[in-house]
């Protein structure tokens, strides 16, 4: 155990910090769930890519820097410290990208990864269906092979970023006779294809952060099949593990939020009547740090060539409940004025983005496998409790 950064890691941090200080937009961008905000975030992705900062863990050939996971954590620490924009292409770079690296052919990698890295193609995800939510193996949307194409019919729902995105990846039933997790395949579909209808769904904040996607005889070339036909479930599971958790919700995000919470608490604690707030602030700070320490432990293990155990399934519950507690506590500290949706610069300066974060935090325990499902997974796979 050596909890000091090497000189090389220190230099890397400085380099990231300098670049971000020079490039992060001075004013926050509009939400990426608006048309204008989406394009502004796409421009930010392009500027990251231009500096080779789009995805530092990727090989240089794909616009990355070949960084290891410790450097990835350092990059994220600096990223959140700098208050840089959220990643509009997170479905692509954090979820699909690693899967393409592992399961894609060289031709597929060359076709999709550079465009993803440049921000030219922003990705939506297409897992859930109206009757396949937590029970993802109940997917019914079909993709039937017809010559050199797949013909897709059916419906996806809760597709994040689908309203403005360019492409969607998801699981489709390529064997119509199959059941459950057999006969599913991972296929990449351009949202501009004929036969696709995207119907926006407004989220709790009123913005169309996700959508329903209807597929009516949509043709895509067989080239767009990722991995083998019928291997979709295994591929999805392989990328649903720790690295996905690490990429998707890195600890720095919560450490930065916890730091802002402590600052808010310092400025308002004399007006606080609710004694439980002090306890909550402490817990938020401690838990954000615990999440970081745990992630460093796991990242170190992976860097050394170790493997992740089933205990990694604890992370989703931990960060999502932490995110809720941070924002619930901030809202309490804001008192009656926490109700205000900031419209003027003055309100925004006083109230910050806590309301946005509070609304978004409600979704954490639901998406990417509800926390109830996560608890089942922990009980059965990590603790070994009986399934039936």
């Amino acid at each position, binding site marked *: *155990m*050596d*909890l*000091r*950064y*090497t*000189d090389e*890691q220190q*230099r890397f*941090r*400085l380099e990231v910090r300098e670049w971000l200080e020079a490039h992060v937009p001075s004013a926050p961008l509009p939400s990426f769930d608006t048309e204008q905000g989406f394009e502004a975030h796409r421009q930010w992705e392009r500027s990251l890519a231009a500096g080779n900062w789009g995805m530092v863990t990727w090989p240089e050939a794909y616009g990355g820097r070949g960084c290891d996971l*410790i450097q990835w954590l350092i990059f994220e*620490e600096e990223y*959140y*410290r700098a208050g840089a924009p959220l990643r509009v292409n997170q479905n692509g770079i954090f979820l699909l990208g690693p899967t393409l690296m592992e399961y894609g052919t060289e031709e597929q990698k060359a076709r999709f990864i550079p465009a993803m890295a440049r921000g030219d193609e922003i990705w939506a995800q297409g897992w859930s269906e109206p009757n396949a939510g937590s029970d993802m193996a109940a997917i019914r949307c079909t993709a039937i092979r017809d010559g050199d194409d797949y013909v897709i019919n059916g419906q996806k729902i809760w597709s994040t970023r689908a309203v403005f995105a360019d492409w969607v990846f998801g699981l489709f039933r390529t064997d119509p006779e199959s059941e459950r997790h057999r006969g599913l395949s991972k296929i990449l579909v351009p949202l501009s294809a004929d036969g696709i209808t995207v119907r926006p769904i407004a989220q709790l904040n009123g913005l169309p952060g996700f959508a329903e996607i209807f597929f009516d005889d949509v043709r895509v070339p067989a080239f767009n099949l990722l991995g083998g036909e019928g291997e979709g479930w295994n591929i999805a599971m392989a990328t649903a593990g720790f690295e996905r958790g690490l990429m998707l919700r890195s*600890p720095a995000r919560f*450490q*930065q939020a916890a*730091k802002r919470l*402590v*600052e808010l*608490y*310092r400025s308002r604690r004399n007006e606080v009547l609710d004694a439980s707030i*002090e*306890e909550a*602030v*402490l817990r938020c*700070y*401690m838990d954000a*740090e*615990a*999440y*970081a*320490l*745990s992630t*460093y*432990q796991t*990242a*170190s*293990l992976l*860097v*050394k060539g*170790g493997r992740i155990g089933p*205990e990694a399934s*604890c992370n989703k*519950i*931990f960060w999502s409940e932490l995110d809720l507690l941070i924002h619930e506590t901030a809202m309490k500290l804001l008192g009656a004025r926490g109700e205000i949706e900031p419209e003027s610069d003055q309100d925004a300066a006083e109230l910050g983005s806590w309301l946005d974060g509070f609304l978004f935090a409600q979704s954490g325990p639901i998406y990417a496998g509800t926390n*109830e499902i*996560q*608890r*089942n997974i*922990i*009980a*059965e796979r990590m*603790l*070994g*409790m*009986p*399934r*039936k």
Partner: protein
Amino acid sequence: MDATFTDDQLTFAEATRAVLTGEVTPDRVRARWSTEDGLDQSLMEQIQSLGLNSVLVPEALGGLGLGQTDFILMAQACGYVALPEPVVEQVTIAAPLLVDAVDRGLGDGRVQTVLDGLQQGTAQIAVGHPINPLINFAHSADWFLLGHGEGLYLVPADEVVIKPLKSMDPSRRIAEVGFDADAAYCLAQGDVGAELWRATLNRGALASAAQLVGLAEAMVEQAVRYTSDREQFGRAVGANQAVKHLLADVAVQLEYAKPVVYRAAYTAEVSPGRADFAVSHAKAAATRAALLASRQCIQAHGAMGYTWECDLQIWVKRAWALAREWGDEGFHKNRIHEWLLRPEALLGPDFTFGRRSITEVPASEEEAA
């Protein structure tokens, strides 16, 4: 940056856990409850032969010269079996305090003699930090390290007054210990005394935290076993989601307490002067996990969980006791609160590992400072 243990550290911990699991069985723990001194002498001899008391003593003083990071998993293993004997206390609290005193040339040759006795197994040392009104296994101690104000006193057993009390945990032998703060026994006072006690408090809280993590691990395992075997409505009670979620919640808290405890061990070893926050975080997180484990695992055992017969009580009651030692949750949360309110506190994602994250300060200079 490497936040993992070495293969050697993992191997030693595994070996320690294997030995302890074989020797410290619930039956043998219960056998101690009806004895006068509450100690298993054959186990004490076995532990002595492993040389554990010398682990944290520098080689120049006859020890192995290892650090808190080397021992923390072994302390966790002692908690895992709910070891009644105060082994962790001897190794990680008493020995390092004696070493500190020798390093500062305190108390003539007495301290070295006592330290030698501890390493050879001829002397038991009890440490009575002012934060702990009760001392465990005081009646078996040959020497006491006691506090009076900021003063540190090394007192022989025949010069103290021991008032035994009964613990809720039948494996413990607690007592109040009185003594005359006689200058003849005084090793240090003032700033030096305060500094030694502060380091001792951190080592004590760390020792409790590691054991609490081990206790919680063992409780969850027992509850999983019980709910897998016990059937109702024609199936294992552990197949019910409500029961699964009780234990999954403990697993989550436990998984995230461990790295916090390991970080505290590392900080206490390499940078003891700045370990307060890390140690308080460790004690608070480990206590939270262990108290949750106690509650949920009793619940998972149903009526059995509320019986004297059920072995779970060995672990549950130890957790309830250790939660109070070396600063309770209130004490440690208060330390963190004070730290968070300081304007100069280094907060945020770039300070997870302290000031060394700031690139302008090379690691070597920071170490020297």
